[in-house]
């Protein structure tokens, strides 16, 4: 059930352990392996509403394990296009596949230039080493 540690090199990362996959003027967001491992098995996902506007570095939702609640920090600004209903129904999907089936939301980028401020894999690994 639990996945093994991995960090794909085609993603952009935020130091709060969130990732973004840029697809044209849209992005798919999720949390990293490190985040799901620190939280433990997820039992609740409180997503934003479709259509909501979210801001870079601000909270767009929450995930909860049995013992802890964690804010989801958005690495980028945009409008919520889609929420992953599979994670709403089965939050442990994030633990099983944090970069695939366990994605959290899809957004339309409000400011595509923001992505230059995110970390590449090498820079994120430095964050992990210091964590």
């Amino acid at each position, binding site marked *: 059930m*639990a996945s093994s540690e991995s960090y794909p090199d085609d993603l952009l990362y935020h130091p709060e352990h969130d990732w973004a996959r840029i697809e044209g003027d849209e992005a798919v967001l999720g949390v990293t392996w490190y985040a799901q491992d620190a939280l433990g098995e997820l*039992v609740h996902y409180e997503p934003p509403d479709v259509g909501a506007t979210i801001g870079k570095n601000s909270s767009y939702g*929450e995930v909860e*394990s*049995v013992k802890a*609640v964690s804010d989801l920090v958005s690495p980028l600004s945009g409008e919520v296009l889609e929420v992953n209903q599979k994670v709403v129904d089965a939050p442990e999907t994030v633990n099983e596949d944090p970069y695939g089936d366990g994605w959290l939301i899809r957004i339309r980028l409000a400011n595509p230039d923001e992505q230059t401020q995110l970390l590449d894999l090498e820079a994120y690994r430095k964050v992990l080493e210091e964590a």
Partner: protein
Amino acid sequence: MVPFAGWEMPVQYEGVIQEHRAVRGDAGVFDVSHMGELEVEGPTARELLQTTLSNDVDRLQPGQAQYSLITNDAGGIVDDVIVYRLDEHRYFVVVNASNRETDFAWFKERELRGSDVRDVSDQYALLAVQGPRALERLDLAKGTPFTFELAEFDGVEVMINRTGYTGEEGVELACMEEDAVRVWDAILARGVTPCGLGARDTLRLEVCYPLHGNDIGPDRDAVSSGLTWACALDTEFTGVARLRELKERGPDQKLVPFVMSEKAIPRQHMRISVSEQPGGGEVTSGSHSPMLDVGIGMGYVPAESAKSGTELVIDVRGRSKRAEVVKKPIYHKEQ
């Protein structure tokens, strides 16, 4: 690991949910050596316990144990304990770790001529083995709940208590502190899953066992807390007059179990509203139920809203989420 009452305690070994399921489906072991142990001895030991504890100590024969409360003048719960009668004039009282010093001082202040109270917590370790296969894995025969015996377990002298905090069959093994690692290893060697504080909390919550400091405490009387069954109101003990009165007229608030009707996890201190009246109640314990896969909890609500089926609204960090009062226990074995 987290600090708890001066101890370093594991929240989990492999994962709260899998440990929880191990206890419901097979057997798990919890190191609960942090629990305090007081020994009360002497010809007036019985009298000291009868006047400080809510339950009727006279009902205990040597070899029997009893759930009881240390109550204050207002009927509030200083601690909830299990009393073991070792022999004619000697009792063992297992208390909550965080109340060990308070309880010891409480008994010491009330000590009678002919009774001696000692804090022997550091001498003993306590390992709880719980689950439908707990007895089988330990090669123990079925026993009567709330009894105990001295026996040898894998070459170590232990006290086998037929008690627990999970709603499952099982035992709590008390042994000398220096034997603890050996007993722990022997239990694990029998295929029992090690479990941490996280699973201990979700297991007890599913069966609505109160946690002192969350659901019960000195500011909540035993009647509101639903623990009148552990109060022998025909005996004389601290706070009994107040408890008789509360039982007679009915408490203002009651501790109730509830299940979330919407996806959300209730947490301690969240506000509970009833019938669109804001506030009025408070969550005292809340979590996710690994067996039912929903948010569950306990909390105080106005007594008129304590019936099962009553709709509650929990304030989950600013979002209103519906819940429903249910009967105890929240989780039934048959499900």
